[in-house]
């Protein structure tokens, strides 16, 4: 699907606006069918959750000693997905990366919805979800507050902060674009966007504060994103369990998060680019760069796997070694090796520049990466619990229908929200694309040349 020759390689500001705003025109039946499908699945999952709340966590496959499994896996997985968004929108912004402008809005949107999804799982997995607020400090007659030593409380703070900050950052970016949409739109949409735009006019005064704040927000988001997944990793690293208690977890998890996140961005953008007909804004150049990030983080993650194994062998703790032996060669060994295949081996293909811009291949690879990363979390979380300190308490685990349906529902929830967004809000930042228009033009030319060849 190389850029069609007809695409204009000299897009003007107006062209950019047109392409983006066209996406936001009323959608067709197929679109609504898809959205409807997603939210039906969400409804079903909600039903299962309701049943779980009513009758107790016994409806899951959880047991002694596997107290955490798929729910927490999903939590970590979705938080991980979220990270690429902030990476692209904030970190790459600070680095003034050229190719980020076209993809960051989509990535950042993904962040919001991924965190929103992730945030559900700590609630879903609670034995008494109706008391979830006990994890937050609030004045109460019992004088009893959360224990700030507990990694779960760090989680509560980190994840909620992350959601808030990303949402604000995202909203800020949206304002000028929505102002554009406001000008173009008609009917109820006009009012809708007028309200959202909050009367933005792009005056020098507004731009002045805007740019400064945007910069600072990026500055805040950057350490935040690193802290969030470190905190998540500490849920495990702070425990004494063999397979969890490890000092490399924070960097290891952050790398893994960006790895899976960027992969997910690609997975989403490739079909979106086609469906929304924005090939002339999302060029192979963009994907090429995204793919490079995937490759890099894949290597980092592989390195982490090796370090983990090495440290276990080097430290010489028999219990730790037993657990890792179980992880590699135990009944769930196949999961580990699937993970290695997906996360370490397959991404090596991305060393080839041709594969990096072959969107079909790229799409398939990133799917594998997502599968691999899900397995990684599962192997670490549930796998380590099965082989604990107390051999008499070892046991395996099999997920129940409830857990599977809720997991499926979480994907539907994420995709549904993302689909809604893609037709109602500018999926690509017009403002920033305009700022970097020269690079876009270069990229388009390059695509054209490659297409010709």
């Amino acid at each position, binding site marked *: 699907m190389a850029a069609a020759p007809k695409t204009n390689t000299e897009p003007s500001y107006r062209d950019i606006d047109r392409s983006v705003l066209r996406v936001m025109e009323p959608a067709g039946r197929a679109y609504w069918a898809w959205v409807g499908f997603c939210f039906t699945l969400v409804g079903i999952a909600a039903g299962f959750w309701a049943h779980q709340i009513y*009758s*107790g*966590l*016994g409806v899951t*496959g*959880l*047991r*002694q*000693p*596997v*107290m*955490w499994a798929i729910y927490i896996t999903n939590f970590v997985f979705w938080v991980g997905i979220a990270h690429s968004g902030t990476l692209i929108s904030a970190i790459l912004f600070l680095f003034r990366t050229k190719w980020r402008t076209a993809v960051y809005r989509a990535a950042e949107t993904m962040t919001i919805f991924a965190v929103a999804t992730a945030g559900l799982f700590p609630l879903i*997995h*609670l*034995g*008494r*979800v109706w*008391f*979830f607020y*006990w*994890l937050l400090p609030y004045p109460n007659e019992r004088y*009893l507050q*959360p*224990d700030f*030593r*507990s*990694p*779960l*409380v760090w989680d*509560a703070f980190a994840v909620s902060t992350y959601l808030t900050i990303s949402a604000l950052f995202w909203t800020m970016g949206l304002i000028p674009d929505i102002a554009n949409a406001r000008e173009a739109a008609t009917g109820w949409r006009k009012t809708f966007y007028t309200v959202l735009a909050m009367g933005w006019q792009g005056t020098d005064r507004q731009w002045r504060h805007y740019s400064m704040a945007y910069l600072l927000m990026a500055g805040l988001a950057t350490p935040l994103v690193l802290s969030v997944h470190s905190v998540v990793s500490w*849920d495990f690293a*702070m*425990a*004494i*369990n063999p397979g969890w208690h490890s000092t490399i977890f924070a960097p290891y998890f952050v790398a893994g998060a960006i790895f899976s996140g960027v992969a997910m961005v690609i997975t989403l953008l490739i079909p979106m680019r086609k469906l929304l007909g924005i090939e002339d804004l999302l060029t192979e150049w963009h994907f090429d760069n995204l793919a490079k990030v995937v490759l890099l983080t894949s290597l980092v993650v592989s390195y982490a796997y090796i370090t983990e194994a090495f440290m276990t062998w080097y430290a010489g*703790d*028999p*219990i730790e070694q*037993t657990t890792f032996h179980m992880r590699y060669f135990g009944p769930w060994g196949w999961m580990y090796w699937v993970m290695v295949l997906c996360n370490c081996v397959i991404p090596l293909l991305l060393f080839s520049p041709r594969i990096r811009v072959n969107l079909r291949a790229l799409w398939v690879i990133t799917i594998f990466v997502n599968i691999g990363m899900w397995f990684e979390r599962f192997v670490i979380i549930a796998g380590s*619990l099965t082989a*604990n*300190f*107390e*051999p*008499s*308490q*070892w*046991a395996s685990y099999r997920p129940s229908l409830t857990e599977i349906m809720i997991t499926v529902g979480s994907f539907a929830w994420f995709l549904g929200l993302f689909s809604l967004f893609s037709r109602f809000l500018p999926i690509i930042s017009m403002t920033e694309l305009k700022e970097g228009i020269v690079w876009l033009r270069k990229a388009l030319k390059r695509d054209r040349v490659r297409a010709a060849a």
Partner: protein
Amino acid sequence: MREGTSISRRSFIKLAATAGAAAAIPGCEPAARKLIPYVVPDENVVPGVPSFFATTCNECPAGCGVVARIREGRVVKLEGNPADPIGQGALCARGQAALQGVYNPDRLAHPQVRGGDGAIRTASWDEAEKMFGDRLATAAKAGKDRVAFFGVPNGPTFSKIALAFVAAHNSSRAIFYEAINNEPTRAAAKMLFGRRDLPIYRIDQAEVLISFGADFLETWQSPVELARQYSQFRTPQKRRGTLTIGRSAYVGPRLSMTASKCDEWIATAPGAQADVAWSVLNVLVKQGKVSQNSDFDLAALGKAVENFDPAATSARTGVPVETITRLGETFGKADGALAIAGTDDSSAHLAAMILNSVTGNFGKTIMFFEGAPAEDTSTPDEVDAAVDAMRGGEIDVLVIAGVNPVFTMPASARVAEALQKVPFVVWMGGVPDETAAMASLLIPAHHPLESWRDTAPRAGIRGLGQPVMQPVFDSKPVGDILIAAAAKTSSTKLPWTTAAEAVKAEWLALAPKAEDENPEDFWINVRREGGSFEEQHLAALSLDTSPFKAAVPTAAQMELSVYAYPHIFLYDGRGADKPWLQELPEPVTQLVWDSWAEVHPDTARKLGVSRDDIIEIKTEHGAIEAPVLVESSVRPGVIAVPIGQGHRAYGRYAKDVGANTWTILAAGATFAAATARATGTTRALVTPLGKSDMMGRSIVEAMSIEQLASGVVPKSEAEEVSGPFEMYAPWKYAGHKWGMTIDVNACTGCSACVTACYAENNVPTVGRDGVDRGRIMSWIRIERYFPNEKEAAEAPQLYLAPMLCQQCDHAPCEPVCPVFASYHTEEGLNGQVYNRCVGTRYCENNCPYKVRRFNWFVPEWPAPLNLQLNPDVTVRGAGVMEKCTFCVQRIQFAELNAKTEDRQLRDGEIVTACQQACPTRAITFGDSNDPASAMMRRRDDNKLRNYRALEELNTQPAITYLRDLYREKGKA
């Protein structure tokens, strides 16, 4: 309050029952009943304060004394009666579970009548009693011996009543039946000493013990008492200058829990024990290791055992000559030795008794007392005669009370068929069982804990069983029914009008006849004490040496045999209706809620089966099917199957669980030649156990007595810990700091502690499926590990130790809890606040001992089981984590008492439930801030044996274990 007279207690109970019932309903449910305040407050009852009544246990013939804990009119816990010389304050799992017999939801609630069409219908008491009376009257008129009583031995007074009852109906047929009746022992005693009562054993007086298949720690004769003695026997002590422990050997087909606690397990085919026993005797005689004062004609003795030359026996049984000789020598040399037998042939018993007497141990390690009580169990012949009479249609009215012959009697006895020949069968009992299914009239009878009873387990010991609470159901005491019936129907009046009256009359007769003694005082006193326990005098034995002149039988060789042993918790099957016992893992196999066929790997290979494959086991008597368990804990060529499951009635908990092993046995036999074939189907055996290999981790540690003697601490594979590592200033525990010392060497694995915990802490049972899905709730469990190849050379045969919350100072579960539901109290407990728990389950993930339990569902106690719940302990709802807190409610109770009495807590004042129940006193609880406390002294006295589970994790457990002790191989 022990002194409350029966009147005042009854009156208060009547008033309290409803209130109590309402109070018992868990908070999460809407109160179903109105609270009724005490109209006349009973001065003896302070709501919230327990009262205690002494009574006796009726779950097996051992006859331990029991103290029942009553709260607001409901019995909530059974504990051993310290005044009783048999149990001495301890009570086994079965005894404690009697509670679930009282509150069993499947107990018969109303009299029932079976119509001609076999359909059952509910009847009124009047109708039932009338029907009963009429039938009795006609039967009595019809002729002699047309009325029969068939019941469980229920004490001398009850026997009197039963006999009077049949006599009143012109009959003499009263059968008192125990499925497990120790007949072989009695027969042997009869042969040698001309008396049929069971000897009294003193294992603690011996230094060598040989058990020929007697599972004396599980079900044999008097397990609680013998377990206590055995733990003393195995306590290290100086003998002839060296520190040592008693030498014990177990000869039998299966590594039972008893065998696993012995120095060595000598695996023989079932029935071959006698051969070995005689051979040991042969060695003794040959080596002249016989006490000169034994009245035996040694020449004749030697003659009798000449075919039992070790070589010959070894050839027949496969037991190494060296082993037999060693047994003989050690037994002969020992200053105090004891041989006991648990086989179904009296031959081994005979040999054992001769072993004891030729070594002059009678009167020392084994003895008879003067004035043995009248035997209350009928002989097998009497039972057979009665059954034949039924089959012969000689009986018109048969009263069955407390026995389940249809289930427990072998197929060969054809009881069912016999019962069909009896026109009118009256069944009296609690949960309707297989026998009830054949009865024409079913009458709900009081549970033993609801009725007046007494026991006479042995000379000098009479236990008084008094009702501990108002009946739960609309039932009557069997005694009362019999007396009433007799009074109505027959001319000869019985001397009493109720069983209660009968018991009192009997006991007043026992009262000392001194002038100053008021019998009523005696009556009050025995009710307070739970019976009368007198000094016992040795009986002078007159030895009849004729039997061993007779040729001694030797066991037939069998290709494949099935060996049946009573399930430690289900006994002869009467335990099967109690969820606590069904869910209690059998200590050696760790299996629950099922029957199983335990086979050796070799046998499994021969049969071509593996774990969970269902095999059909066929003997000449019948066939059963059971899933296979492949363990080397059973001898090749033997299929070991527990007795007790396989009920086809007997309530929701027993019905259709496993297979009835009685059906494949001959009368009185424990084994039979068998064939086995794979059925091709499978059923997963259910166990809470993961791996059986400890993998060198310091969970259950052991050391050899030789190491202990030479002061060497064994080198464990686990990381060495120099001492507590404190990263920060350690917390100060100003007042008490509770701790526990657990002697693994004393622990037999009997699981009495586990049941005690279930009862004390309202721990729910989760059923077969629940256990299978890893949701068993027990707060304390018996860790069971097999030594692996590496360890096998120097390890006990089985690692058994209780594992419960270690109350760590550096508890990993605490800092991970986001809401302080898990925290550390000022007294060093690892507290768990159920109401605060939100159910993240992080604590259990982080608990290295995996002793926390999560409520996956709302726990259920089908009424009236919920009446047993301990009001002092919260009933946890779904979604919260729970765990052991050293019975914090008991700690609080004691501390409050001390406070109100304005004094210091005394050491030993707080007794945790597990500690209280332990027959071997393996558990000691106390204040680790008080070096003088028994708990701390026990640690200090056994410094070399101290270890803490998984110590290298630096969790700083409050529990210190004392290493198990074993004897290095070749030195046994």
